[in-house]
Structure formats: structure tokens, C-alpha cells
């Protein structure tokens, strides 16, 4: 009887500690490619994977090979409504990933990012190599929104290569896009774009601080990280301590405005304790997979961090990024990680 009580106690403590770490939140990993993708042959499975046990095990959901890039979960849907940005277009599931429908047609391909408007979940924006597309009916219909960034207007096809979108929390009609030709701004939800900053530089990601909407960071190709304190009007390079200057992902500690994480090509996971002024990059436990494409920080337990690596699958840190442990999806290129 005593033994049984002890076992129950252990199980309770274990369960409690696990819940403390991830509070039952699912972790999503969007795998672009598993090793290699040769169109027309049998490839290892890629696409959307979900872990419901803090990264111990992973389960594949939906399509097997569609060059999935990123995802968005409809707020308040409890993970039921998921959008996947992929080579085949935008896919939508309304049953937590069991069944899917392609929401776009031949006009839209190679979708890189997808974002749901914070004030109206029916408004959705996608970033593609052919510009921005917008839906106002939860993905059923799409319109191209490229006025101001078309190659014939800017002189370069790089301006329609849009790899990130940011809806300004302070003014949700204001949208910033990161393109291969710098950052463009729209003040009317994408109806018209104009140059904002960093023109000529390839932008890989733009993120807004959850602590101060005026603070925006941009990760770039070959130019490291830029920080703006005035909503994107002026920018300064903040590269002290970075191990590489191509930055794919930047994530914030939700509870401490000073702590920021970044990762990129051969950078390891970099942490700043001073609001991005300087960085310390660590590879401990990453088994050499030091190219990081996506980082997610747990909303309630900021020491629990998930990193999507290029070729190494998912790694998890439980100590605020000091050390990392392999979680799963070995050999994959994990393009996006999301904690529900």
C-alpha cells in the first residue's frame, strides 16, 4: 500500500512538474524538408508535427510533403483552427489538423508566412515570393496587395519577395513587411505600400516587442539584427556578440523586456539580457546543429524555449537557453516552432 502511495505521489509530482513547464500547451513544429526533397520521388515525411507532452514525442498531422513554411492558430479556437503556409498554398484545418483544405488556388504559391489580424480573425495576410495577399473571409478568397512594391514600381523583383509580416499592435491598420529589398510600410492594411527602411537589405524577420510596441527588431541576411525604438522609423544595428550575421528568428521573453533570443545561419541560439544591445550565443547541447530557423518561448515559463534547427530537428532548453537537449524530428529542417 505504501509503495502504491509512493508511486501515485511520484506520478502526481511528475505530472505537476510537466504541467508547470508547458501547462498542457501543444508545441507545433513546421518541417520544411526532412533531409532532402526531390519532387517526384518518395521523400521522408515533412509538414506539421505536434507534441502534446512538452516535446517528448511528436505526431505528424496532415499532408506529408508540401514544403510547409509556417503556421498560424486562430485565437480562441483552442488549437482547432490552424492555417499552414506551404508550397501548395494556404491549408486550413478546423479540426486540429485531422483534415485540411487548400484555401488558395493557382494564383498563390510558395507561401512563406501567414498572420491573422489581431482584431479580426477573418482578416488574414500571407507573405509570398510574389508579394502580399489578403483574405477578409477567413481564407476563402484572396486578393493580391502589391501596390507600391511591384517590380515595375520599385525596379526590382526583390521588393515582392516578402518573407515576414508584422501588424502593428499600436495601430492595427499599420502593417510592416520584410522583403528582400528592405522594409515597406502600409497604413491602410496593405492597400498601398511605401518604403520604410533598410532598403537594399534582405529582411528575414520582423518582430514587435510584447512589452513596448515601439520596439521592433529586424533579422537580416548578412547584416545581423537591427533595432528600432520608434516603431520602425529609425533603426540601429545591434550585432555585438553575434556569431553570424544572417538572422532568421527573434523571440522575446514574455515576462522580462530585457531578455531576447535570436538565431540564424550558424549562430547557435543567441540571448540578449540588455534589450538587444549585446548577445551571447550558445551551442551547448545542439549537437552541432547551430543554424536556427525558429525560436518560441513559453508564455508562462520563460525558461522553457523551443528551437527549430536546420537539419537537426527540434531542441528544447529548460534553462533560458543556456543548455539545449534534442527533442525530436531528427534530420529535419524545422522552419517554424510555435507554442500554443
Amino acid at each position, binding site marked *: 500500500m505504501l509503495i502504491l502511495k509512493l508511486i501515485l505521489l511520484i506520478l502526481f509530482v511528475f505530472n505537476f512538474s510537466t504541467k508547470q513547464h508547458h501547462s498542457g500547451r501543444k508545441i507545433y513544429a513546421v518541417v520544411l524538408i526532412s533531409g*532532402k526533397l526531390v519532387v517526384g520521388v518518395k521523400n521522408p515525411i515533412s509538414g506539421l508535427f505536434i507534441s502534446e507532452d512538452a516535446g517528448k514525442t511528436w505526431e505528424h498531422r496532415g*499532408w506529408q510533403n508540401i514544403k510547409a513554411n509556417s503556421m498560424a492558430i486562430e485565437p480562441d479556437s483552442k488549437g482547432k483552427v490552424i492555417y499552414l503556409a506551404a508550397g501548395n498554398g494556404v491549408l486550413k484545418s478546423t479540426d486540429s489538423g485531422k483534415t485540411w483544405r487548400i484555401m488558395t488556388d493557382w494564383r498563390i504559391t510558395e507561401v512563406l508566412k501567414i498572420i491573422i489580424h489581431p482584431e479580426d480573425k477573418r482578416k488574414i495576410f500571407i507573405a509570398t515570393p510574389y508579394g502580399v495577399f489578403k483574405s477578409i473571409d477567413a481564407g476563402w478568397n484572396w486578393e493580391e496587395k502589391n501596390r507600391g512594391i511591384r517590380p515595375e514600381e520599385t525596379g526590382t523583383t526583390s521588393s515582392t519577395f516578402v518573407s515576414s509580416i508584422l501588424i502593428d499592435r499600436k495601430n492595427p491598420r499599420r502593417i510592416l513587411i520584410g522583403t528582400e529589398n528592405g522594409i515597406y510600410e502600409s497604413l491602410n492594411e496593405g492597400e498601398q505600400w511605401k518604403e520604410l527602411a533598410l532598403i537594399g537589405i534582405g529582411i528575414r524577420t520582423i518582430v514587435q516587442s510584447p512589452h513596448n510596441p515601439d520596439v521592433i527588431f529586424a533579422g537580416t541576411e548578412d547584416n545581423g539584427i537591427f533595432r528600432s525604438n520608434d516603431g520602425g522609423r529609425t533603426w540601429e544595428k545591434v550585432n555585438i556578440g553575434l556569431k553570424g550575421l*544572417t538572422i532568421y528568428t527573434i523571440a522575446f521573453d514574455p515576462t522580462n523586456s530585457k531578455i531576447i533570443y535570436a538565431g540564424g545561419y550558424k549562430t547557435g541560439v543567441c540571448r540578449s539580457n540588455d534589450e538587444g544591445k549585446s548577445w551571447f550565443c550558445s551551442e551547448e547541447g545542439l549537437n552541432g546543429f547551430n543554424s536556427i530557423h525558429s525560436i518560441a518561448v513559453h508564455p508562462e515559463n520563460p525558461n522553457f524555449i523551443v528551437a527549430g534547427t536546420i537539419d537537426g530537428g527540434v531542441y528544447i532548453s529548460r534553462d533560458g537557453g543556456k543548455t539545449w537537449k534534442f527533442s525530436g524530428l531528427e534530420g529535419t529542417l524545422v522552419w517554424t516552432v510555435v507554442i500554443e
Partner: protein
Amino acid sequence: MKNLIPLLISLCIIWSERETLADDMNFETRREILLKHFANLNLPSFAVCLAKFATEHDLDNGVKIFDTLISNPSGDMFFMFQSLMTYLYAKEKMPEWLKQKYRNVWKTYTPFRGDTENHWVMYYVSLYLAAQEWKNQDGTKWFNGKSSSENFKESEEWINKWIEITTTIGQGEFDSPRYLPFFLIPMFMLYEFAEDSLMRLKAQMMLDYLFSDYAVEHLAGCYCGGHSRDYPYDALNPRYAPSSAFAFLYFSDEGFKKTDLNRFGIAVFAAVTSYRLPDIIYHIATDREVPYEHKERKRVRNVIRFGKERNPPVYKYTYVTKDYCIGSLQGGVLQPIQQHSWDITFSDSGDYNTIFSVHPYFSEIEVGMFFPEEMKILPELVDRAHKVYRNPNKWSSSSPYERLFQYKGTLIAMYDFKLMKPVERYRHINIFIPRILDHFEIDTLGWIIGKRGNGYFGMRILGGMLGLEVDSISYSFKVYGDRICLIVESGGKVEFGDFNSFRSALKSCSFEFDSVKFVVRYKSLRGFEMLFEYPEGRFLNGEKYDLNWALFDGNYLKSEVGALIISWRDKKRILNFKNLKIIEE
């Protein structure tokens, strides 16, 4: 003796397999030989399966093979078109359970749409015909969650868009010896199975269009000249490229052997259809009595980064004779990874009947122009699929530092590696010259001269240091330098008489080469003068030579707005895409 019998039988079989196929066969005979050959095989292949159904030979095995192939689908759009073609052709001969099983594949198998033009043609044509086959079904019955009518509408729209783009600004994956079949077969499928008569007509016109495009640059089973996409082994041995299967079936059987049939499986999908090549296109493919020049305009595949425009024009020039053909693109990055900028193809039907050069360039910028993944890892990702992208010895590549200027049988290729950025590699070019030559020499003036059958060539290398590696198939030259210029002359018996006359005539050619300004002035074998100022200054006999011509511009093919005029002697066939009419005169 007892042991010798099987050996002798084997030798007889091998000998008969090596036999050249009779050279007086007509299309129907070749078609029959091809179908019978595949019907008699027992391989897990849709071509074998389809041939069995087409000849009604070994139907039980045909059913088994189809069942095996659809039980564990893979191959995305390649699976879609092959399985659907087989199903649509043979469904009346298939048991009900197999038909139901196949229908379910379109619900459970989730194919990738792909990222190239040929992928999309296969994907959307297959989807169009599948949605037509299984009408009025809701999204739960389809892999993509869309209903039959939604899938049909989307596919129809895209097919129409592709036809419009191809016939107005040109094909992006143009003239590819590897991928031509994957444009042809979907058109065969539409021609054979589309219920909409207008769609069938469009498919017929596109088949005529694609076959004309091939025929005019066809020689001895090869697709000669510049190509958008060419795999290294196809570039080295063009008679072995998949397009040759269609040369065999529709143009001519010259020189093909029985063993070649094994690699012509893709043509089975054409052979079972009712499409017949118009005589006029057959004549264009085979009449080589009079040498001719032919110009084409195509388009660059979608440039998603670092371009001034989405689809810049590609200018293609080809000179075709009975003995050889020489053709080129203008140079620069027109396609990633597999561009084949120029070649000479000899009409000799043996192996390795070609000569060309390539700058084995690679960069993250080049692949970043066309692919959306992160640029830093793109070269590595490409190599995982294509193996040789970063290999300095590769035989297919585009290069931003290559420019070409061709007029008739003379071609000048210039490579300016001084413009390369420090991180970029490599600073040399590879030149392929086959070992199978009747004559090969480097003369005292520096001309590399050779003869293959009745085709002759001379090559002069200006600038750079020359290295030569000889292996079993080639004389492989490597030229290292900052600024390299190749002058290539081609000729044949019809134009120059015997080989010695050609050799002597080469000595009369003169040039002035300025490596500082990177300009070459060349007085050619045929007497005209070419001045080439790298990168874009082309002058012929003192006149500016503009690259500015229509989609097709030659004696056999001419394009006007929305129409292709196919001519041979006094015959004409006009494909009018504006009015959707085929007019014969």
C-alpha cells in the same frame, strides 16, 4: 558443348538486341514495336501496365501492376499523370474493385504541386481530368478538400493561362531534352480525354506547337542547341535524353537500336493516343537538305529575387545542316542549375555526338533568384537533389559571367571572371569534346580541330591557361583565366566538301583580341565579321546585331501575335491561338 548452348543463345539475343531497327519503318510500325516491347515486359511501371492494356496482352498482369503501383503512391504529379492516363485509357478493362481503389487514392494521397513549370502542367492537367472523371463530388472526396467543380475550374484556368503565356511570351522551361515529355504527355492526355472539344483543340494545337519547336532543332534523334534544363548525362550524350523517345516515335528511327526501346517507356503514353503528327512537322524534323538558321524567343523562369523584371526574354539562335547543328542562348543566368548555353550536335548517330562549354558556376544568389528557401543553405539543398551543383567539373550550369554571340556556324563565347565576387567560384570553364572522333588535332596556330562523321569543328581559345584531361569518353579541356574567349567554327561536307578543305579554310580566319577591353573582332570561316564587346555589344559586318526577335523566326516557323505559322515548301499550317483555329494551306 552443353554449356556453350545457353551462351550462344545469349549472344544471339544480345546481338539481335544490338541490331539497329529497320530504317524504313513508318509511324504505325514504330508505334506497334514500342507498345509490344513494353507489353512483353513485367516491371512495376505504368508504361508497362498501359502497354499491356493497349495491346490487350497479359491483362491479368496489367491489373496486378496497376494495383501494386497505386497501393503505396509516391511521386507527386509524376504519379498523378501516369496513373490517371493508365486509368482513363484502361478503365473499361479494369475490375470494379480496382477502379474504386484508384478513386480513393485521389482522396488519400496528398501530392506536392511542385515548383517548376513542368510540375504544374502535370499537376493541373491530371487534376482537370480527374475532376472531369469524378464529377459532382464534394471536398471530402478529394485530397485537397475542394469539390470536383472547384478543382475543375482551377485547373482549367491554369491550363488556359499556361497556354496563353507560352504562346505570347514564351515557355520558361523551354526546349528541355529532359522535360519535354512532361509537357507533351499532359497535352496528349487532354487531347485524348478532355470532354470539352475546345480544350481538346487547344491540346492538339499545343502538341503541334511543342512538336514544331522540337522538330526545327532536331537532328539525328537529338534536341540540339541551347536548352533551359539539361541533365549532365543528357548534355554529354544527347541521343539518350528522354526527348529522343519522341524523336524515335514521331520523326525517324534512324540509328536507334532495339536496346534503345527500353528507355522509350515515356513514349508509350503518347503511342496509345489518337494524335497523329502533321506531315508538315515530320518534314521539318527530317528535311536537312538545305542549311538554315532559326531564331526563337523564350522567357526566363520566374525571377523572385534580384531581378529587374519577372520574366526577361531568352534569345535563342540555331543553325541546322544535314551534317551538324550548332545553337546557343545569349548567355547569363536564364535558368538555375541546369542551363545548357550552347552546343554543336553532329548528325552521326553514335554516342557522345556533341561539343559544348560550360562555366561551372554556383552561388546562393543564383539559386536565390528562383527558389524561396533561405539562400545560405540553398546550394546545399540543391546538391542533395542534383548532386553536382557545386562540382567544378559539372557539365550543366548557367553563369552571370558568360555571354554568347552566334551567327550561322560561328559562335563566340566570352567569360569575364574579373567581375566575379571574391566569394564566388569557379574561375574556369569546362569544354567537352568527345573521344569518338574521326580526326582530332591541335594545329600550330592553336586551332583545336576535329571531324565527326561529315561534321567538322574548329575551336580557338583566347585568354587563359589550358588543361586537358583525356578519359574514355572525352577530351575535357579546362581553361583557367580572368577573361576567356572561345571562337567556335562548325562546318560539314555539304558546305565545305572534304575535311581538309575545312582545315585549310580555318587558317584564313583572323581575329583581334583585346583582353583589357574584353573585345574580340573575328573574320569568320564564311567571310563575315563579328565584333563582340563583352557583355552585350554584338556587331555583324559593322552593323549592330540586336537580340530582338519574335517567338519564332525562321523559314519553317514564324510567329505573329497569337499565332504560329508552320511552313515547309509550299505547305502551311497555322495555329491561331487567338481564334482557336488550325488552318492548313
